[in-house]
């Protein structure tokens, strides 16, 4: 087979995939659009409540408004880890790829939200406690979990795609989740052994309500982002499968076109990679 025909075939396959994707998008957009609308509306409401509606805290001033971002992203990061754990168990039990995609979506989103939690925590701690970093138990726990799930994602990036990667990644995701309560207990003991300034936080009235709305808004945002990541992941898998199909053709001059920003499974179609 001459190179031209392989290229033609690649184009046909990609056109097919694109048409398929259009059909899928045509079937779903109402839910996705509605969800996006709810997310945007809740976010706008949260911003209004945080910056205009809720009264300024007397002791700390405006910086206390960090709370309304810090707590919700911390909550969503924990939800993300729970999602990775549940999806990992489900994958090991069923070996259905969709659980693996869900675990990736959870881990990637979770790492982002954990990073946001750390940043908002540090920005808040500096003016109030005088230091960027303290041994505060929840901050410590989030930092360690951040590292574990970054390692989880790095493992996935290093490992050739296939059943083995999904299985081993599920094991790592699960060990991280098992470790979470132990880390938190250790971090609490650590905090007690190395006491630092503690600021009393009363969450009732307007503060509590704003916090509640913000938490709901960030949860909805999390579901939206993780959902989009899940869809993207599925499309990446489809593209990888197409590439593999192309690279199995006798002529494979067009199969090695790595696209930036994707996982290695789309780079250089190694057909035996997942063995």
């Amino acid at each position: 087979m001459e190179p031209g025909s392989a290229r033609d075939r690649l184009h046909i396959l990609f056109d097919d995939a694109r048409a398929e994707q259009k059909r899928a998008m045509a079937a779903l957009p109402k839910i996705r659009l509605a969800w996006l609308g709810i997310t945007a509306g809740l976010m706008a409401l949260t911003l209004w409540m945080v910056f205009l509606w809720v009264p300024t805290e007397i002791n700390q001033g405006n910086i206390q408004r960090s709370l309304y971002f810090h707590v919700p992203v911390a909550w969503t990061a924990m939800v993300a880890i729970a999602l990775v754990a549940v999806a990992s168990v489900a994958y090991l039990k069923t070996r259905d790829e969709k659980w693996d995609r869900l675990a990736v979506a959870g881990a990637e989103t979770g790492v982002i939200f954990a990073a946001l939690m750390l940043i908002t925590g540090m920005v808040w701690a500096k003016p109030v406690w005088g230091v960027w970093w303290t041994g505060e138990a929840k901050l410590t726990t989030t930092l360690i979990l951040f590292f574990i799930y970054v390692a989880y994602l790095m493992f996935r990036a290093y490992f050739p795609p296939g059943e083995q990667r999904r299985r081993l990644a599920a094991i790592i995701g699960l060990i991280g989740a098992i470790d979470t309560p132990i880390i938190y207990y250790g971090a609490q003991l650590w905090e007690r052994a190395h006491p630092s300034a503690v600021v009393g936080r009363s969450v009732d009235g307007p503060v509590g309500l704003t916090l509640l709305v913000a938490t709901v808004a960030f949860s909805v945002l999390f579901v939206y982002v993780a959902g989009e990541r899940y869809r993207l992941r599925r499309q990446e898998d489809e593209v990888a499968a197409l590439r593999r199909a192309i690279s199995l053709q006798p002529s494979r001059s067009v199969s090695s076109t790595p696209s930036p920003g994707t996982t290695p499974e789309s780079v250089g179609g190694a057909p035996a990679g997942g063995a």
Partner: protein
Amino acid sequence: MGASLATIWTLARKDLLLELRSRDIVLAIIVFALLVIAIFTFAIELTPSRSRDVGPGVLWAAVAFAGVLGLNRSFAVEAEGDTLDGLMLTPVSRELIFFGKLLGNFIFITIAEIVIFPVFEALFNISVLQVETIVIALLASIGFSAVGTAFAAVSVRVRSREIMLPLLFLPTSVPLIMAAVESTSAVVNGGSWSDFSDWLQLAIAFDVIFVIASAVLFQFVLEE
């Protein structure tokens, strides 16, 4: 039960024999850990009180970092010799293979600690050779080898596994490292068992949970 223990010992003995001939793993752990400790004696100007403050942290950081080197080898040796498949074909359950590997790693780390602790005591001038610290060291070695054996098996087939294992192993072991550092700290500052009983409980809980969890998850690691 007796047969299982015999199988575990046979598997561990295989690793010990290999190690006795090559002396790769234990020597690497010892030299690397002593190097870390020595570098810290230059990096920090050690007064008696400062030694007691930072010493336990340096000791356990050195053991953890050096331990990763040894753990890396435990499955790399199998992969390089193409003996992993042979190991999987042996008619014993995956749990027993895990416990065999765990026992081997535990012995390696413990032997290394027997050398590391006295040298550390000499360099930092703080007394760590006490019953309390020996118990702590044993608990830490059990936890390190449980988590390390599982992650070494997970990362054995990944490219650049030398990078991957510490990235997985170190954050997961943080609670255990915390417990070891804080308990040792209490001991060198003249504390008794009751002063660090919380940390001991944490270390024991870590060991129990991860020995069981790693053994259960190990069957999914070696699965073809």
